[in-house]
Protein backbone atom coordinates (compact mmCIF):
# COMPACT_ATOMS: atom_id res chain seq x y z
CA UNK A 1 0.00 0.00 0.00
CA UNK A 2 2.91 2.33 0.71
CA UNK A 3 5.28 2.34 -2.24
CA UNK A 4 8.34 4.40 -2.75
CA UNK A 5 8.74 5.87 -6.18
CA UNK A 6 12.32 6.91 -6.22
CA UNK A 7 13.39 7.91 -2.75
CA UNK A 8 11.53 11.19 -2.50
CA UNK A 9 8.03 10.34 -3.53
CA UNK A 10 5.64 8.05 -1.71
CA UNK A 11 2.85 6.41 -3.64
CA UNK A 12 -0.11 5.23 -1.59
CA UNK A 13 -2.71 3.00 -3.19
CA UNK A 14 -6.08 3.55 -1.64
CA UNK A 15 -9.13 1.44 -2.15
CA UNK A 16 -11.67 3.40 -0.24
CA UNK A 17 -9.55 3.61 2.88
CA UNK A 18 -7.64 6.54 4.26
CA UNK A 19 -4.27 7.77 5.40
CA UNK A 20 -3.16 10.79 7.35
CA UNK A 21 -0.67 13.03 5.63
CA UNK A 22 1.22 16.23 6.19
CA UNK A 23 -0.69 19.18 4.94
CA UNK A 24 0.31 20.27 1.50
CA UNK A 25 2.32 17.18 0.79
CA UNK A 26 0.21 15.83 -2.02
CA UNK A 27 1.87 16.35 -5.35
CA UNK A 28 -0.37 14.32 -7.66
CA UNK A 29 -3.06 11.68 -7.67
CA UNK A 30 -5.25 9.74 -9.99
CA UNK A 31 -8.68 8.36 -9.41
CA UNK A 32 -10.85 10.02 -6.86
CA UNK A 33 -9.56 11.53 -3.64
CA UNK A 34 -10.96 13.61 -0.86
CA UNK A 35 -8.80 15.74 1.39
CA UNK A 36 -9.91 16.82 4.80
CA UNK A 37 -8.00 18.94 7.22
CA UNK A 38 -7.52 17.54 10.66
CA UNK A 39 -6.46 19.38 13.71
CA UNK A 40 -3.38 18.25 15.49
CA UNK A 41 -3.29 17.59 19.16
CA UNK A 42 -6.82 16.39 19.35
CA UNK A 43 -10.25 17.73 18.87
CA UNK A 44 -12.16 20.37 20.71
CA UNK A 45 -11.04 22.76 23.36
CA UNK A 46 -8.39 20.51 24.79
CA UNK A 47 -6.94 20.05 21.37
CA UNK A 48 -6.78 23.74 20.80
CA UNK A 49 -5.14 24.36 24.11
CA UNK A 50 -2.63 21.61 23.47
CA UNK A 51 -1.74 23.13 20.18
CA UNK A 52 -1.28 26.55 21.67
CA UNK A 53 0.84 25.25 24.47
CA UNK A 54 2.98 23.03 22.38
CA UNK A 55 3.32 25.38 19.48
CA UNK A 56 3.29 22.25 17.41
CA UNK A 57 2.50 23.00 13.85
CA UNK A 58 1.39 19.49 13.29
CA UNK A 59 -1.29 20.02 10.78
CA UNK A 60 -2.29 16.84 9.15
CA UNK A 61 -4.91 16.09 6.59
CA UNK A 62 -6.92 12.99 5.99
CA UNK A 63 -6.76 11.58 2.49
CA UNK A 64 -9.40 9.12 1.45
CA UNK A 65 -10.38 7.71 -1.88
CA UNK A 66 -9.88 5.29 -4.68
CA UNK A 67 -6.72 5.40 -6.68
CA UNK A 68 -3.14 6.30 -6.09
CA UNK A 69 -2.00 9.39 -4.27
CA UNK A 70 1.55 10.66 -4.45
CA UNK A 71 3.13 12.46 -1.53
CA UNK A 72 6.37 14.35 -1.28
CA UNK A 73 7.80 17.17 0.76
CA UNK A 74 10.47 19.53 -0.46
CA UNK A 75 12.41 16.75 -2.09
CA UNK A 76 13.20 15.23 1.28
CA UNK A 77 14.05 11.57 1.39
CA UNK A 78 11.35 9.28 2.61
CA UNK A 79 11.93 6.45 5.06
CA UNK A 80 9.35 3.81 5.84
CA UNK A 81 8.87 2.75 9.43
CA UNK A 82 6.82 -0.16 10.78
CA UNK A 83 5.11 0.00 14.11
CA UNK A 84 4.00 -3.03 16.07
CA UNK A 85 1.97 -1.76 18.98
CA UNK A 86 4.66 0.66 19.94
CA UNK A 87 5.29 4.35 19.77
CA UNK A 88 7.35 6.34 17.34
CA UNK A 89 8.50 9.78 18.42
CA UNK A 90 9.12 12.05 15.49
CA UNK A 91 9.68 15.73 14.81
CA UNK A 92 6.36 17.03 13.55
CA UNK A 93 7.76 18.43 10.39
CA UNK A 94 9.41 15.13 9.62
CA UNK A 95 6.23 13.08 9.54
CA UNK A 96 4.84 12.60 6.06
CA UNK A 97 2.15 9.93 6.07
CA UNK A 98 0.69 7.44 8.53
CA UNK A 99 -1.89 4.68 8.25
CA UNK A 100 -5.17 6.11 9.40
CA UNK A 101 -5.30 3.48 12.11
CA UNK A 102 -2.26 4.87 13.88
CA UNK A 103 -2.91 7.36 16.61
CA UNK A 104 -1.04 10.64 16.47
CA UNK A 105 -0.50 12.96 19.37
CA UNK A 106 2.07 15.19 21.01
CA UNK A 107 4.41 14.52 23.86
CA UNK A 108 6.61 16.59 26.07
CA UNK A 109 10.24 15.78 25.57
CA UNK A 110 11.66 17.95 28.23
CA UNK A 111 14.63 20.14 27.83
CA UNK A 112 15.81 18.41 24.73
CA UNK A 113 15.95 21.48 22.69
CA UNK A 114 14.22 24.28 24.48
CA UNK A 115 17.31 26.37 24.61
CA UNK A 116 18.12 26.21 20.97
CA UNK A 117 14.79 26.55 19.39
CA UNK A 118 13.80 22.95 18.87
CA UNK A 119 10.31 22.18 19.97
CA UNK A 120 9.83 21.09 23.52
CA UNK A 121 7.20 18.79 22.22
CA UNK A 122 7.33 16.13 19.63
CA UNK A 123 4.79 14.10 17.69
CA UNK A 124 3.93 10.58 18.74
CA UNK A 125 2.62 7.90 16.45
CA UNK A 126 1.14 4.90 18.21
CA UNK A 127 -0.27 1.54 17.30
CA UNK A 128 0.36 -0.95 14.58
CA UNK A 129 0.85 0.06 11.02
CA UNK A 130 3.18 1.93 8.73
CA UNK A 131 4.41 5.47 8.68
CA UNK A 132 6.63 7.43 6.37
CA UNK A 133 9.09 9.91 7.83
CA UNK A 134 11.12 12.54 6.06
CA UNK A 135 14.77 13.30 6.21
CA UNK A 136 17.14 15.63 4.50
CA UNK A 137 19.23 13.01 2.78
CA UNK A 138 18.71 9.30 3.46
CA UNK A 139 18.37 8.71 7.17
CA UNK A 140 20.47 6.31 9.16
CA UNK A 141 18.92 4.16 11.86
CA UNK A 142 21.16 3.70 14.88
CA UNK A 143 20.52 1.17 17.58
CA UNK A 144 20.93 2.09 21.20
CA UNK A 145 21.59 -0.50 23.86
CA UNK A 146 22.67 -0.33 27.50
CA UNK A 147 26.22 -1.15 26.45
CA UNK A 148 26.35 1.58 23.89
CA UNK A 149 24.56 4.87 24.41
CA UNK A 150 24.40 7.29 21.54
CA UNK A 151 25.11 11.00 21.22
CA UNK A 152 23.27 12.90 18.54
CA UNK A 153 23.39 16.41 17.16
CA UNK A 154 19.93 17.88 17.75
CA UNK A 155 19.66 19.18 14.21
CA UNK A 156 20.30 15.73 12.83
CA UNK A 157 17.78 13.96 15.04
CA UNK A 158 14.54 13.01 13.32
CA UNK A 159 12.82 10.29 15.28
CA UNK A 160 13.17 7.41 17.72
CA UNK A 161 11.42 4.26 18.83
CA UNK A 162 11.76 2.04 21.84
CA UNK A 163 12.51 2.50 25.50
CA UNK A 164 14.91 5.38 25.44
CA UNK A 165 15.86 8.16 27.79
CA UNK A 166 17.07 11.42 26.40
CA UNK A 167 19.51 13.72 28.11
CA UNK A 168 20.27 17.10 26.87
CA UNK A 169 23.94 17.77 27.15
CA UNK A 170 25.81 20.95 26.88
CA UNK A 171 28.98 19.20 27.75
CA UNK A 172 32.22 20.60 28.85
CA UNK A 173 33.56 18.97 25.72
CA UNK A 174 31.72 21.46 23.63
CA UNK A 175 32.92 24.55 25.32
CA UNK A 176 34.91 25.55 22.34
CA UNK A 177 32.70 23.88 19.81
CA UNK A 178 30.73 26.94 18.90
CA UNK A 179 28.96 26.00 15.78
CA UNK A 180 26.79 27.61 13.24
CA UNK A 181 24.48 29.65 15.32
CA UNK A 182 22.42 27.13 17.16
CA UNK A 183 22.27 23.51 18.05
CA UNK A 184 25.94 22.84 17.91
CA UNK A 185 26.89 23.46 21.48
CA UNK A 186 24.38 20.89 22.54
CA UNK A 187 24.00 17.21 22.15
CA UNK A 188 21.28 14.71 22.92
CA UNK A 189 22.40 11.57 24.65
CA UNK A 190 20.20 8.51 24.24
CA UNK A 191 20.35 5.65 26.70
CA UNK A 192 18.33 2.48 26.98
CA UNK A 193 17.03 0.20 24.31
CA UNK A 194 15.76 1.40 21.01
CA UNK A 195 16.36 2.94 17.65
CA UNK A 196 17.25 6.52 16.73
CA UNK A 197 16.91 7.94 13.23
CA UNK A 198 19.34 10.65 12.17
CA UNK A 199 19.61 12.59 8.96
CA UNK A 200 22.85 13.61 7.26
CA UNK A 201 22.08 17.26 7.67
CA UNK A 202 21.44 19.80 10.36
CA UNK A 203 18.08 21.20 9.57
CA UNK A 204 16.80 22.84 12.66
CA UNK A 205 13.21 22.49 13.57
CA UNK A 206 11.78 25.54 15.16
CA UNK A 207 8.68 24.67 17.07
CA UNK A 208 8.14 21.81 14.72
CA UNK A 209 7.91 23.98 11.66
CA UNK A 210 10.87 24.19 9.36
Amino acid at each position, binding site marked *: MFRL*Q*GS*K*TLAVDLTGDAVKAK*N*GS*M*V*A*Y*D*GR*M*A*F*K*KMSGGGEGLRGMVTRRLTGEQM*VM*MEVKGQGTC*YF*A*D*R*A*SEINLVSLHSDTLYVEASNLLVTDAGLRTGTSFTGLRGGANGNGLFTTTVEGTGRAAILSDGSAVALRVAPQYPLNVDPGAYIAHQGRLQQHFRSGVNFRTFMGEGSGESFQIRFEGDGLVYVQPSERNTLGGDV
Partner: protein
Amino acid sequence: MPFREINSKMVEAVVSPGRKMYSQRGAMLAYRGDVSFTPNIQGGQGGLGSMIGRRVADEAAPLMTVEGSGTVMFGHGGHHIQVIDLAGDTLCVEADRLLAFDGTLQQGTLFLGSQGGVMGMVRGQVTGQGLFTTTLKGHGAVAVMAHGGVIELPITPGRPVHVDPQAYVAHHGDVANKLSTALGWRDMVGRGSGEAFQLELSGNGAVYVQASEEKL
Protein backbone atom coordinates in the same frame (compact mmCIF):
# COMPACT_ATOMS: atom_id res chain seq x y z
CA MET B 1 21.88 15.65 -29.99
CA PRO B 2 21.46 13.30 -27.09
CA PHE B 3 22.40 14.23 -23.59
CA ARG B 4 24.57 11.79 -21.74
CA GLU B 5 23.78 11.58 -18.06
CA ILE B 6 26.94 11.77 -16.04
CA ASN B 7 25.03 11.58 -12.83
CA SER B 8 21.63 12.67 -11.65
CA LYS B 9 22.73 16.28 -11.53
CA MET B 10 24.94 16.64 -14.55
CA VAL B 11 24.54 15.94 -18.24
CA GLU B 12 27.00 16.13 -21.07
CA ALA B 13 26.31 17.13 -24.64
CA VAL B 14 28.41 17.25 -27.76
CA VAL B 15 28.24 20.43 -29.74
CA SER B 16 29.33 20.47 -33.33
CA PRO B 17 29.30 23.05 -36.11
CA GLY B 18 25.81 23.43 -37.43
CA ARG B 19 24.22 21.79 -34.42
CA LYS B 20 23.67 24.27 -31.74
CA MET B 21 21.82 24.07 -28.48
CA TYR B 22 20.06 26.41 -26.21
CA SER B 23 20.54 26.34 -22.51
CA GLN B 24 19.68 28.35 -19.49
CA ARG B 25 22.16 31.01 -18.61
CA GLY B 26 24.66 29.92 -16.08
CA ALA B 27 23.95 26.26 -16.72
CA MET B 28 27.37 25.44 -18.08
CA LEU B 29 29.56 23.70 -15.55
CA ALA B 30 32.57 22.87 -17.68
CA TYR B 31 33.51 22.41 -21.28
CA ARG B 32 36.20 21.21 -23.61
CA GLY B 33 37.03 22.49 -27.00
CA ASP B 34 35.96 25.64 -28.73
CA VAL B 35 32.49 26.51 -27.57
CA SER B 36 30.82 29.88 -27.37
CA PHE B 37 27.99 30.91 -25.11
CA THR B 38 25.95 33.78 -26.38
CA PRO B 39 23.12 35.29 -24.40
CA ASN B 40 19.98 35.19 -26.37
CA ILE B 41 17.92 38.33 -26.56
CA GLN B 42 15.13 36.57 -28.30
CA GLY B 43 15.01 33.89 -25.68
CA GLY B 44 15.32 31.36 -28.42
CA GLN B 45 13.20 31.45 -31.51
CA GLY B 46 10.23 33.63 -31.61
CA GLY B 47 11.78 37.00 -31.95
CA LEU B 48 11.42 40.04 -29.82
CA GLY B 49 7.71 39.59 -29.46
CA SER B 50 8.20 36.30 -27.76
CA MET B 51 10.51 37.75 -25.20
CA ILE B 52 8.16 40.56 -24.40
CA GLY B 53 5.29 38.17 -24.20
CA ARG B 54 7.24 36.20 -21.71
CA ARG B 55 8.24 39.10 -19.59
CA VAL B 56 4.69 40.25 -19.37
CA ALA B 57 3.71 36.83 -18.32
CA ASP B 58 6.43 36.93 -15.75
CA GLU B 59 8.22 34.04 -17.30
CA ALA B 60 11.82 35.05 -17.41
CA ALA B 61 13.51 32.55 -19.64
CA PRO B 62 16.98 33.84 -20.12
CA LEU B 63 18.52 31.49 -22.59
CA MET B 64 21.86 31.33 -24.25
CA THR B 65 22.99 29.79 -27.48
CA VAL B 66 25.68 27.18 -27.18
CA GLU B 67 27.57 26.52 -30.37
CA GLY B 68 30.95 25.52 -31.64
CA SER B 69 32.86 22.34 -31.48
CA GLY B 70 33.38 20.48 -28.26
CA THR B 71 31.73 18.90 -25.26
CA VAL B 72 29.75 20.77 -22.64
CA MET B 73 28.67 19.68 -19.19
CA PHE B 74 25.42 21.17 -18.00
CA GLY B 75 23.92 21.36 -14.57
CA HIS B 76 22.42 24.00 -12.37
CA GLY B 77 21.97 24.67 -8.73
CA GLY B 78 22.62 21.04 -7.94
CA HIS B 79 19.14 20.19 -9.13
CA HIS B 80 18.19 16.84 -10.46
CA ILE B 81 18.05 16.57 -14.19
CA GLN B 82 15.69 14.51 -16.27
CA VAL B 83 16.34 13.97 -19.94
CA ILE B 84 13.27 13.68 -22.11
CA ASP B 85 13.55 12.58 -25.70
CA LEU B 86 10.98 13.90 -28.09
CA ALA B 87 10.07 11.96 -31.17
CA GLY B 88 7.97 14.43 -33.01
CA ASP B 89 5.63 15.25 -30.15
CA THR B 90 5.31 18.31 -28.02
CA LEU B 91 6.69 18.86 -24.58
CA CYS B 92 5.19 21.50 -22.43
CA VAL B 93 7.48 22.66 -19.67
CA GLU B 94 7.95 25.49 -17.22
CA ALA B 95 10.53 27.76 -18.79
CA ASP B 96 12.64 28.09 -15.70
CA ARG B 97 12.89 24.33 -15.47
CA LEU B 98 14.51 24.04 -18.85
CA LEU B 99 18.17 23.30 -18.52
CA ALA B 100 19.17 22.75 -22.11
CA PHE B 101 17.65 21.52 -25.32
CA ASP B 102 18.35 20.74 -28.95
CA GLY B 103 18.47 23.76 -31.20
CA THR B 104 16.33 22.00 -33.77
CA LEU B 105 13.25 21.91 -31.58
CA GLN B 106 10.52 24.37 -32.30
CA GLN B 107 9.74 26.65 -29.43
CA GLY B 108 6.51 28.28 -28.53
CA THR B 109 4.47 29.34 -25.56
CA LEU B 110 1.30 27.90 -24.23
CA PHE B 111 -1.12 29.35 -21.80
CA LEU B 112 -1.63 26.80 -19.11
CA GLY B 113 -4.87 26.86 -17.29
CA SER B 114 -7.33 26.87 -20.09
CA GLN B 115 -10.01 28.44 -18.06
CA GLY B 116 -8.06 31.59 -18.55
CA GLY B 117 -9.50 34.86 -17.46
CA VAL B 118 -9.91 35.26 -13.76
CA MET B 119 -8.99 31.73 -12.87
CA GLY B 120 -5.78 31.89 -14.78
CA MET B 121 -4.84 35.18 -13.23
CA VAL B 122 -5.66 34.00 -9.80
CA ARG B 123 -3.58 30.94 -10.29
CA GLY B 124 -0.75 32.95 -11.58
CA GLN B 125 -0.70 35.22 -8.61
CA VAL B 126 -1.58 32.72 -6.03
CA THR B 127 0.88 30.03 -6.88
CA GLY B 128 3.43 32.44 -8.15
CA GLN B 129 3.64 30.40 -11.25
CA GLY B 130 3.89 31.76 -14.70
CA LEU B 131 0.80 31.78 -16.79
CA PHE B 132 2.74 30.70 -19.79
CA THR B 133 4.78 27.62 -20.29
CA THR B 134 7.22 26.84 -23.02
CA THR B 135 6.46 24.27 -25.66
CA LEU B 136 9.08 22.36 -27.51
CA LYS B 137 8.21 20.31 -30.53
CA GLY B 138 10.14 18.11 -32.86
CA HIS B 139 12.81 15.51 -32.67
CA GLY B 140 15.45 16.02 -30.10
CA ALA B 141 16.34 15.87 -26.47
CA VAL B 142 15.45 18.17 -23.63
CA ALA B 143 17.11 18.32 -20.25
CA VAL B 144 14.70 19.43 -17.55
CA MET B 145 15.50 20.35 -13.96
CA ALA B 146 13.39 19.77 -10.96
CA HIS B 147 13.73 20.08 -7.25
CA GLY B 148 14.55 16.62 -6.07
CA GLY B 149 13.94 14.86 -9.32
CA VAL B 150 10.74 13.95 -11.07
CA ILE B 151 8.45 11.02 -11.32
CA GLU B 152 6.69 10.30 -14.55
CA LEU B 153 2.99 9.56 -14.29
CA PRO B 154 1.20 8.22 -17.33
CA ILE B 155 -2.05 9.83 -18.38
CA THR B 156 -4.50 7.54 -20.07
CA PRO B 157 -7.97 8.24 -21.44
CA GLY B 158 -10.47 7.89 -18.65
CA ARG B 159 -7.81 8.13 -15.97
CA PRO B 160 -6.89 11.78 -15.61
CA VAL B 161 -4.15 12.79 -13.22
CA HIS B 162 -4.48 15.64 -10.78
CA VAL B 163 -1.35 17.54 -9.95
CA ASP B 164 -0.45 20.15 -7.42
CA PRO B 165 0.41 23.14 -9.64
CA GLN B 166 3.57 23.82 -7.71
CA ALA B 167 4.80 20.29 -8.22
CA TYR B 168 4.09 20.35 -11.94
CA VAL B 169 7.21 20.28 -14.08
CA ALA B 170 6.25 19.31 -17.61
CA HIS B 171 4.01 17.12 -19.66
CA HIS B 172 3.97 15.71 -23.13
CA GLY B 173 1.53 14.07 -25.43
CA ASP B 174 -1.99 14.83 -26.40
CA VAL B 175 -3.08 16.23 -23.09
CA ALA B 176 -5.70 18.73 -22.08
CA ASN B 177 -5.27 20.66 -18.91
CA LYS B 178 -7.83 22.13 -16.63
CA LEU B 179 -7.45 24.15 -13.55
CA SER B 180 -9.97 23.43 -10.88
CA THR B 181 -10.76 23.88 -7.29
CA ALA B 182 -11.84 20.56 -6.01
CA LEU B 183 -14.25 20.68 -3.17
CA GLY B 184 -12.01 18.80 -0.82
CA TRP B 185 -9.21 21.24 -1.33
CA ARG B 186 -10.95 24.14 0.23
CA ASP B 187 -10.74 22.46 3.56
CA MET B 188 -7.03 22.27 3.32
CA VAL B 189 -4.84 25.07 4.34
CA GLY B 190 -1.54 24.22 2.89
CA ARG B 191 1.71 26.00 3.15
CA GLY B 192 0.83 28.38 0.44
CA SER B 193 -2.50 29.33 -0.94
CA GLY B 194 -1.56 27.40 -4.03
CA GLU B 195 -3.10 24.42 -2.37
CA ALA B 196 -6.53 25.63 -3.21
CA PHE B 197 -6.05 24.73 -6.82
CA GLN B 198 -5.15 21.67 -8.71
CA LEU B 199 -4.27 20.99 -12.28
CA GLU B 200 -6.16 18.23 -13.97
CA LEU B 201 -4.51 16.62 -16.95
CA SER B 202 -6.42 14.28 -19.18
CA GLY B 203 -5.88 12.60 -22.50
CA ASN B 204 -2.96 10.53 -23.58
CA GLY B 205 0.56 11.20 -22.49
CA ALA B 206 2.59 11.64 -19.36
CA VAL B 207 3.13 14.29 -16.76
CA TYR B 208 6.31 14.92 -14.85
CA VAL B 209 5.83 15.79 -11.23
CA GLN B 210 8.58 16.84 -8.89
CA ALA B 211 8.96 15.61 -5.36
CA SER B 212 8.54 19.05 -3.94
CA GLU B 213 6.27 22.02 -4.01
CA GLU B 214 8.92 24.59 -4.27
CA LYS B 215 9.64 26.55 -7.32
CA LEU B 216 13.23 26.32 -8.34
